[in-house]
């Protein structure tokens, strides 16, 4: 029987520690026992495969999901999904969600006294094309306060959820905006202690993606786990 082609092991220095006490919620929600290193079996190198059928035409444009246009700064967020070996990850589901331009989520538990926008839900999904590319149109999310510590503010961010080709490659992350002074103060962003690794969560303003008279463009490439070695092609 053909043996599963394992994935590279994660470099812990490039990832947040589960116990990151400046982010208070991790204190009671992080395992204390070491994780048990496990070989990759068929159960881990396979994973959910999505069809295009679940994606609707306005799922990639968060500004066209209601009668009117949402308030705020219209932006284009685009990039490529690659693996660590630089291979484009085609046909993978990318799900995003975010606060509106005032920094308020439509979520029932968000109590921040900023206005909801009747023309903005803040959820989108696309499947990457054959080059691993994706593209969303949305509005720039606002910053919002949270109760982690006195005067705590989350920097504007867009949540990203991706599957990649296997159970191993599952990634949930957040995309931040360049030059944001809140990043230095945010315990969630700073949970990635290596500044170079942290910067991989920051999108780049891109004048080429920016569309004249219409919307600013940001590029955000995402790198998922890759294989240990080139799979045999036969």
């Amino acid at each position: 029987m053909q043996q599963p082609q394992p994935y590279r092991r994660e470099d812990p220095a490039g990832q947040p520690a589960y116990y990151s006490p400046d982010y208070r919620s991790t204190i009671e929600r992080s395992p204390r026992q070491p994780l048990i290193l496990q070989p990759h079996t068929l159960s881990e190198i396979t994973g959910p495969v999505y069809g295009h059928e679940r994606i609707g035409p306005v799922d990639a444009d968060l500004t066209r999901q209601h009668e009117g246009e949402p308030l705020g700064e219209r932006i284009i967020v685009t990039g490529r999904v690659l693996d660590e070996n630089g291979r484009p990850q085609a046909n993978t589901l990318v799900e995003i969600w975010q606060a509106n331009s005032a920094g308020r989520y439509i979520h029932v538990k968000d109590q921040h006294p900023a206005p909801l926008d009747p023309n903005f839900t803040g959820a989108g999904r696309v499947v990457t094309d054959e080059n691993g590319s994706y593209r969303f149109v949305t509005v720039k999310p606002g910053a919002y306060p949270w109760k982690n510590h006195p005067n705590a503010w989350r920097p504007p961010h867009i949540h990203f959820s991706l599957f990649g080709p296997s159970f191993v490659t599952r990634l949930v992350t957040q995309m931040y905006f360049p030059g944001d002074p809140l990043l230095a103060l945010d315990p969630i962003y700073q949970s990635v202690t290596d500044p170079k690794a942290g910067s991989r969560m920051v999108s780049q303003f891109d004048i080429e993606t920016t569309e004249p008279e219409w919307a600013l463009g940001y590029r955000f490439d995402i790198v998922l786990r890759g294989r240990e070695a080139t799979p045999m092609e036969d």
Partner: protein
Amino acid sequence: MAKAPYDMTPSQTVGPFFHFALPYSGGETLTNDATLGERITIEGRLIDGNGEPVTDALIEIWQANSQGRHHHPEDGQEKQIDPNFDGFGRTPTDEQGWFRFHTVKPGQVPGPGGAPQAPHINISVLGRGILKRLATRLYFDGEAANDSDPILALVPEERRATLIAKRQGDGAAYRLDIVLQGADETVFFDI
């Protein structure tokens, strides 16, 4: 092992506000009327280090079909594909920290070296305060193959029970609580 040419994007918490985006209708039901295999329910509570239920987390499962084959191009086993089973489920925990999936009992899947693994379900735990997906597995109580499962064998004997779902009564429901921290902490895997 040479360093990878591209560096991975770091993980971040899913946060508390994903409910309007990630859960979808029927995400907890993996079967339809035509799905092959033994119908089972798996359920449990997600518990934090204070013994409190975690009410704002997201649980995902991934498993083989009743024949032990995954709905995935890299599973080249000569076993029956079930067009009525794709093997993925997703549900948020409820106000008491419960999660529940309706699925079928998976068949056996080969492990390292081709030796069979005991029937199991892969689980991802995502939530506020969880900066990176926690991966664990669910095994089934009373399954003879558990004794020779190559992954369970990696787990210290006294902690294996944290991975084994208990059959409820004589029905088709299995319960496995997931404990993030503390005396009965669930075994999580570095995959």
